[in-house]
């Protein structure tokens, strides 16, 4: 759950040295909080992942521009709800080929963490109802399969031996629709048909 605030420079000031200050607010609490790394910074983004890591809270952020002695008003975001708005990264995908089947093993992505010392939290823990949308494609026959799986493994049977198949996987979680982040396409060939081999000899 990496949450980064982005903004555009004020109009008409592109190329001019403008510094920005960011604050954030936890909905239901009392005051705006500073983000020291994003005080008087010339970047037009601010990583608030650490500050918004409790995904059951809701947040606001605001930014103001300053140049020499003058300061702009604050510009404020809407209410941000990480649990419902964070994009879910794709799982790790491991493929194993058989003669007429391909085994797909999926490992859910991990929640963003500040340091490696922090314990890893799987997105499966954050979203118990997380499912995977597995799509498989055969470049040769142009056939396509889709399957939704809840646990992390799947075997696709009845495939052609010695044939290339490509797989892409996307994690789906409850809540409003989100921008999909599918995994990279991974391809693997099924093994040669052993019975054919023996006949030939």
């Amino acid at each position, binding site marked *: 759950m990496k949450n980064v605030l982005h903004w555009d420079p004020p109009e008409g000031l592109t190329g001019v040295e403008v510094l920005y200050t960011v604050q954030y607010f936890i909905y239901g609490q009392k005051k705006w909080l500073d983000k020291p790394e994003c005080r008087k910074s010339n970047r037009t983004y601010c990583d608030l992942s650490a500050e918004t890591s409790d995904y059951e*809270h809701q947040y606001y952020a605001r930014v103001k521009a300053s140049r020499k002695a003058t300061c702009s008003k604050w510009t404020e975001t809407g209410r941000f709800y990480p649990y419902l708005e964070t994009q879910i990264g794709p799982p790790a995908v491991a493929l194993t080929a058989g003669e007429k089947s391909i085994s797909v093993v999926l490992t859910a992505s991990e929640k963003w963490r500040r340091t490696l010392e922090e314990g890893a939290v799987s997105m499966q823990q954050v979203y118990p109802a997380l499912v995977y949308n597995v799509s498989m494609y055969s470049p040769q026959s142009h056939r396509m399969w889709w399957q939704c799986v809840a646990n992390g493994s799947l075997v696709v049977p009845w495939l052609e031996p010695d044939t290339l198949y490509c797989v892409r996987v996307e994690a789906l979680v409850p809540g409003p629709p989100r921008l999909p982040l599918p995994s990279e396409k991974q391809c693997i060939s099924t093994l040669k048909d052993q019975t054919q081999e023996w006949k030939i000899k």
Partner: protein
Amino acid sequence: GQEFQFGFCHVQGVKLQVLRKAFGTLRDTVQAQDNTTSVRLLRKEILQNISDAESCYFIRALLKFYLKAVFRNYYRQASELRLRRALSTLTNNFLALASALQPREEDKVFSLAESARRRFLQVQGAFQQLDVEAALIKAIGEVDILLTWMEKYYQ
């Protein structure tokens, strides 16, 4: 629709995506009007550690509260903001859900109902401390929190 199990209350045909979509229509307008951001009705501490058995009582209390104290009193504003259809969708689905969530006589446990009631009174108390208009806006702006909590009981 989807199936939910709130403790011993089982309910089918819940259209959570319909509710999400309806709320999505209202969200930006309503949350932008909420100026008392230092108050959160459905606080995290209230929604945490609710036992399964208690959840049916709690969700019923919340649904009744939204139907009687919130949605019913926001129709004029919703009409002015052209959000009436979305509010009606929320109302109708909450109504269907509330009527489907009837704990059976043999499952009624006084202590659980009491615990759920104490939780609910915290929500209602915070609501009643606000100005009427502000309270309505805040409660509606928090429907996403309620739906997210409900989703944990999805089967």
